[in-house]
């Protein structure tokens, strides 16, 4: 009996300590998330250049172990890098990321069905592929709603040069024979560059065939739709893009 009482007493005693430890770990996770992940995933984790993590189910991290693996190792072939974090730090970030799914998802005004019609009425397909149709100068849109937040997509429509996606750097090239070409970089190394012009034609040059190579980090071939769309049309188009979650 005394033993039981002692045990119960211990439990009661340690409960606040456990809560405090959990809270401290959550606080560390939040701080690490903001410093390490926030610049791409947004300080609230609801997406930016990186995926929206404020969702109950994450596409690539289907369980806790997968989530920790991604935080530690990154996702090869994407912008998600590996990290030097300790297992404890990885766990605290993972714990914090899981709480993001309990956050109420961002309200997106606008009508996705009308947005689809708006999408079809514009010339987006000239550069973007959706459902296997379209051009290749811009990012594929099949799962853009899973990879980008509504706020990021809205900004991309209004101010596309504010955040040009990685892998779509615009180049202005002047060749030794005096031609000026502009396009989107496909690849580059110390001695050569490959890019696709806005007509979709691929160009490949050795750098000694080029007079100048201007990397236009703050430029985008995409026009601003601020003056083209009404506020309502923009809301609808954002709602449509947010609905594109991929398979």
């Amino acid at each position, binding site marked *: 009996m005394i033993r039981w009482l002692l045990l119960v007493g211990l439990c009661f005693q340690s409960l606040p300590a456990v809560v405090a430890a959990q809270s401290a770990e959550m606080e560390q996770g939040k701080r690490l998330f903001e*410093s390490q992940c926030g610049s791409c995933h947004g300080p609230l984790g609801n997406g930016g250049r990186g995926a929206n993590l404020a969702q109950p189910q994450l596409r690539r991290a289907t369980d806790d172990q997968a989530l920790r693996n991604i935080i530690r190792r990154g996702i090869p072939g994407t912008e998600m890098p590996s990290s030097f974090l300790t*297992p*404890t730090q990885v766990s605290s970030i993972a714990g914090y990321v899981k709480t993001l799914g309990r956050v109420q998802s961002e309200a997106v005004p606008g009508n996705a069905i009308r947005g689809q019609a708006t999408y079809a009425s514009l010339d987006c397909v000239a550069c973007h592929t959706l459902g296997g149709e379209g051009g290749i100068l811009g990012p594929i849109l099949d799962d853009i709603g899973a990879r980008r937040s509504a706020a990021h997509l809205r900004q991309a429509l209004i101010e596309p040069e504010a955040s040009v996606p990685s892998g779509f750097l615009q180049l202005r090239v002047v060749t030794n024979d005096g031609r000026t070409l502009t396009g989107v970089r496909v690849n580059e190394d110390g*001695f050569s560059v490959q890019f696709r012009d806005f007509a979709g034609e691929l160009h490949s040059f050795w750098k000694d065939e080029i007079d100048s190579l201007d990397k236009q980090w703050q430029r985008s071939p995409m026009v601003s739709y601020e003056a083209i769309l009404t506020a309502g049309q923009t809301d609808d188009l954002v709602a449509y893009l947010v609905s594109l979650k991929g398979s």
Partner: protein
Amino acid sequence: MKTRVLLLVTAACCSARPQPAEAQVSYERILDAASEPESWLTYSGTYGAQRYSTLDQIDRDNVDRLQADWIYQARSLQKFEVSPLVADGVMYITEAPSDATALDLRTGRPLWSYRRPIPPDIVTCCGQVNRGVALLGDQVFLGTVDAHLVALDASTGRVNWDIEVAEHTEGYAITVAPLALKDMIIVGISGGEYGIRGFLDAYDARTGERRWRFWTVPGPGEPGHDTWSGDSWERGGAPTWVTGAYDPELDLLYWGTGNPGPDFIGEVREGDNLYSESLLALDPDTGELKWHFQFIPHDVHDYDSTQIPVLLDAEFEGEPRKLVVFPNRNGFYYVLDRATGEFLVGKQFARQTWALGLDGNGRPIEDPESVPDLDGALVYPDDDGAANWYSPTFSPQTNLIYQNVREKGATYFLADATYEPGRIYMGASRRAVPGEDPRGFLRALNALTGDLVWEIEVFSPPWAGLMSTAGGLVFSGTMEGDFFAADAYTGDVLWRFQTGGAIYANPITYISEGRQFIAIAAGSALFNFALPK
């Protein structure tokens, strides 16, 4: 007719190479390696570590005809960081994680392979890699990621002895190519991110018995111990994971040391933290410290002064001096007197923001704004450094030192670090600079002043080492897989080859059947280039 041709070929081959796969690499041969340029007998080519070859068959006029002659495919897809050795018709390489292979130089075909099973609980900060073997007598020496040193029979790859250098579960590993010296094998240790206590060891090449150990973090009662607060010395780091150099006249062994631990938290290890971030000059027979020069007292940026000490003799301010030069990962180029350790020159050669400059003794004046804190401190270079383990080269033809340079920053946020054996013990997290376009260069510096003479921009910050030759050439590689030769005098790129894989290795050169070859590991393949027959 056919038979007669075959017989002739066989006779010619055997008279030219009497002892295939029977390396007898005496200490005297390594001492005199500069006069045997057809071989590559030690990590940096010679004990002086200039990575310069007097071979000149491939030169500025004909290098544009260089072509791949044979390629060896490694089994591992880990970074292929090997610097091969070549002796008596055989090339000796390592493959990740801790394997060794002997290749027939005529055909590129393996003669033997030693495949080491690796325990699953290995911890290495930066890949389970290996940078090469040492040769001495009829043995091949290999360090392993489970922190063993292994002596293999050079003819068969069979194990002669296998000793534990340190306990790998405590965070120790070996990635360095050992150095054969006299009748000993000198080997360093990795683990600066795991709270190890660093050391440099010497082993009897015949028996594997340890001759001496120099603790790079002094214990109680030893000079320098008072540069560590409390018990922080027990986890003080200062690893020794890049091969050093040796001056036989002074009989001094030179070796660089890495970061103190935890990497980014200074307050738990107040003091200068000797002998982290230092160049050590040791008596090779006893391991006794003769002098040291600490590049970064109390480092909090994980810069590691584990680069190649390059030895050169030159007239300096009117006096003939025996010098050691050191392009440091911290962005400064150092010239020291290698007899005394006297600081002579310190010159910035890459973008850096961590120091406001160096004082008259070469001690850095740290910028407090660069110290990691909870809000994040932006610093150049990042902890990959302006240079790293990959080799520079000095050409006595041009009197230039060549260095691949990385210009990339990062923001460091202070974090907790609790020591547990075999666990990361660093104390900060790193964030890349958003929107930054990191840059990479091959730079040629005046060896006595560090002044920039020419540079080639190479796109991404490189991880390739360099080699210069009497053909007036410097060989280098890039992360995008370009292997190239530049005019050592002007920096004009005279030849390039797209290998298809990132280059994390140092080039070497050798002669096989009368032809000069250039070898480099790229991706998971080892390329051997020569002029057409």
